[in-house]
């Protein structure tokens, strides 16, 4: 639903946002260069590749994985994706017995530094409403069938904690390099609505 809305309103919204920005710049309330840098940061510098590097490192370095599960902010900061004082983050490990999935039913909380900005579907009413009451149905729509004996744990991000899922490493990747593994890790797998599969 929401991903059609932005098609309907761009010109009016574009004008309104431009007018507000001009006013704020003229009043000295915002620095247009800071706005440029912010747009550039989220379009080009911060995104799910950060998270994929964390996952790939955890898959290949057991000591790192242990630190990641115990102290996610510290371990993520090691790779430079989080300031030291930073984000409160928890990494949820998927196993053959547990599948984790993340939602924010009340708004759109999401681990920006490691995954970038959330996709529209994550912020949409269908996902927010159904992830907690029918996670297996939602996963099915993403093409993921979770066996009945596997426990599905949904994490509703109602506070300042941010969750990322450490997906299962796919079989057949024993010889892959960390870089090659990072290429396999999708954003959706770190939200918990996809499995990592060989390309």
């Amino acid at each position, binding site marked *: *639903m*929401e*991903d059609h809305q*932005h098609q309907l*309103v*761009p010109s009016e*919204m*574009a004008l*309104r946002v*431009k*007018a*507000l*920005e*001009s*006013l704020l710049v003229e*009043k*000295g*309330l*915002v*620095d247009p*260069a*800071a*706005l440029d840098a*912010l*747009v550039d*940061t*989220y379009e080009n*510098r*911060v995104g799910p590749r950060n998270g994929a590097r964390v996952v790939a490192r955890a898959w290949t370095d057991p000591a790192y994985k242990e630190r990641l599960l115990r102290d996610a902010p510290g371990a993520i900061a090691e790779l430079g994706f*989080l300031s030291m004082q*930073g*984000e*409160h983050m*928890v990494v949820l490990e998927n196993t053959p017995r547990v599948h984790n999935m993340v*939602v924010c*039913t*009340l*708004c759109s909380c999401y681990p920006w*530094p490691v995954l*970038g*900005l959330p996709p*529209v*579907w994550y912020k949409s*009413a*269908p*996902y*927010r*409403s*159904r992830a*907690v*009451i029918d996670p297996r149905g939602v996963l099915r729509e993403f093409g993921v069938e979770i066996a009945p*004996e596997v426990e*599905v744990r*949904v994490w*509703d991000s*109602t*506070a*300042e*904690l941010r969750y990322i899922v450490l997906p299962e490493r796919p079989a057949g990747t024993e010889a892959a390099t960390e870089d090659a593994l990072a290429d396999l890790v999708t954003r*959706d797998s770190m939200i918990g609505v996809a499995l990592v599969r060989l390309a």
Partner: protein
Amino acid sequence: MNGIHDMGGMHGFGPVQAEKDEPVFHEPWEGRTHALNRALGAWKKWNIDTGRFGIEQIPPAEYLRMSYYEKWFTRNVELLVKTGLVSRAELESGRPEPGSALRTPPLRAGGVAAIALDRGIASSVEPAVTPLFAIGERVRAKNIQPVGHTRLPRYARGKTGEIHLDHGVYAFPDTSAHGLGENRQHVYSVRFAARELWGHEAPARDSVHIDLWDEYLERA
């Protein structure tokens, strides 16, 4: 508030529609709106809870109709006026009022890289604040109906769960959003069995973990 934003457990919104190769921003104004939000946040005239409550106050029909960044834009305009950073007259004319002072933005381009890695939520280590509950303890989410901002979703109220993690100490949204103090207290990940939340037809082993503040909980 029991607003339309509190939609966990609702039916009727249709299937999740994922967009293939979705861009970070669909239109340039979305990127500018996101950036304006961060840049204005640097004035520290409002906090994250005030900001969330601002979005929750959008009337329900509008809330559902608006795109995500349209909601942000609407909320920010309201907050700018409410905090006095901008006047209604300025919004209407699009120009600063005559004689209004020229300010200096607190966030400059050079400061952007740092905040991109840090959302600025204050540290959670505060040994002076004692947790009311221990890991493993059975708790019930209170049956409360705050008319202001709250982060206790309706679907959990009155339900019994178990303290799974203690996340440390955070400002309490129900007071923080309304300028009534940070009221810092422990936040826990509380595990609720899916059957406790949704009844006996839910899968037996599934669960929902919800992050809840001390004041939302009582001993079960």
